[in-house]
């Protein structure tokens, strides 16, 4: 059964995986499997594919656990990165992106749209869950916050976010880039 994140020793579980102890992978799966599947499901939006990705993630965690370095990040973060990367690769490789070079994007990017865009509705109930990111998300305008969350949580590409928000693609790209800059500065 899952216990609070603070009570589970993710690093020890990865160590035991590296040492070939299958029970540790099982414990990790019991602890994090539902949350991981939730994260993957949001990105790939297909239940069977989500299960495939979680399966592959488990095998990746198992075979690569020995290379995890506690100096370079948290064990829980490592597990989520392995899993999210598989999910993102699955959707990016599977879905054909509409090709659009930067010039086209610039042509589409109407300056006024950037200035005048006001969407005050939050698409995510982020306050309760964002933890130490809350203060920094708070500083973003709602529409920019939505861009970041649609990208990270829903795995949407620039083009998909633009369609979802009915905003010009270039504008969405600029919002995301600036929001990332603002988040980094805020979280330093």
């Amino acid at each position: 059964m899952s216990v609070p994140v603070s009570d589970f020793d993710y690093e020890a579980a990865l160590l035991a995986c590296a040492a070939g102890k299958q029970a540790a992978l099982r414990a990790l799966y019991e602890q994090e499997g539902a949350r991981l599947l939730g994260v993957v499901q949001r990105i790939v939006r297909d239940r069977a594919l989500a299960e495939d990705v979680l399966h592959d993630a488990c095998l990746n965690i198992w075979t690569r656990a020995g290379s995890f370095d506690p100096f370079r990040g948290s064990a829980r973060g490592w597990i989520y990165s392995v899993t999210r990367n598989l999910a993102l690769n699955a959707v990016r490789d599977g879905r054909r992106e509409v090709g659009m070079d930067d010039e086209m994007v610039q042509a589409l990017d109407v300056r006024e749209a950037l200035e005048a865009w006001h969407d005050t509705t939050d698409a995510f109930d982020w306050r309760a869950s964002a933890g130490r990111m809350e203060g920094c998300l708070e500083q973003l305008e709602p529409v920019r916050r939505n861009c970041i969350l649609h990208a990270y949580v829903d795995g949407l590409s620039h083009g998909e976010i633009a369609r979802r928000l009915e905003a010009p693609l270039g504008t969405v790209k600029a919002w995301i880039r600036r929001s990332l800059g603002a988040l980094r500065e805020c979280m330093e």
Partner: protein
Amino acid sequence: MNRGSPEARELQALAGEYVLGTLGAAERRRVEARLPTDPELAAAVRAWEERLLPLTALAEPVSPPDRLWQRVERSLGALAGFPAAMPLSRRPWWRDWNSLTLWRGLAASGFAAAAVLAAVLVGRLAEPLPATRFMVVLVAPEDRAPGWVVQTRTSGQIELVPLGVVEVPADKALQFWTKADSWSAPVSLGLVTPGQSAKVPVSGLPALQPNQLFELTLEPRTGSPTGRPTGPVRFIGRAVQVL
């Protein structure tokens, strides 16, 4: 690379979009291909992964069906049976060797190892060690041979004592790092000279904690260009409280 330079900002933006997930398939692959040989990009990606991790909590958990774990177990069995055909062993970008097993193994041997090394130290230093509260044995990853000992004898300073001579290529240097479990990033304790003791002031750091990590990595002669470990680990260990 200057932190505020256009190149640095570009690198941060690329790493951020990679972790956020907004890069297209071809761009994602290009970033992944660069990671093993581009420590600055790799460090930026890791920092973004840690920064954005809390957002994973926004996805509603979905209970996996029982059959999924059974499938994982079958696949693990297949992996064990055919290790040579293991399709998933592509090495990730941050490290090739099994650091966790290594230093945990050392920790598992526990106080016995610490006691032996304490004895070694007493012999070497030929003075009483009343203030020693922690002992860290830094061992080589390949053969677990002890290479250095870290100890705290006075507050505000730690001492790194070599147990032997280490070969370091002429264009490289050994850089000393530490990280407590609760810290978000390792802190550099400076470059050290092989074979020589080093006294490192740590008054700017929180008090040494049990389990705190120490490592020596091989870096460019003037130290890591990123402020984080970038080169291979030569010695690593965790702080053990000495009673």
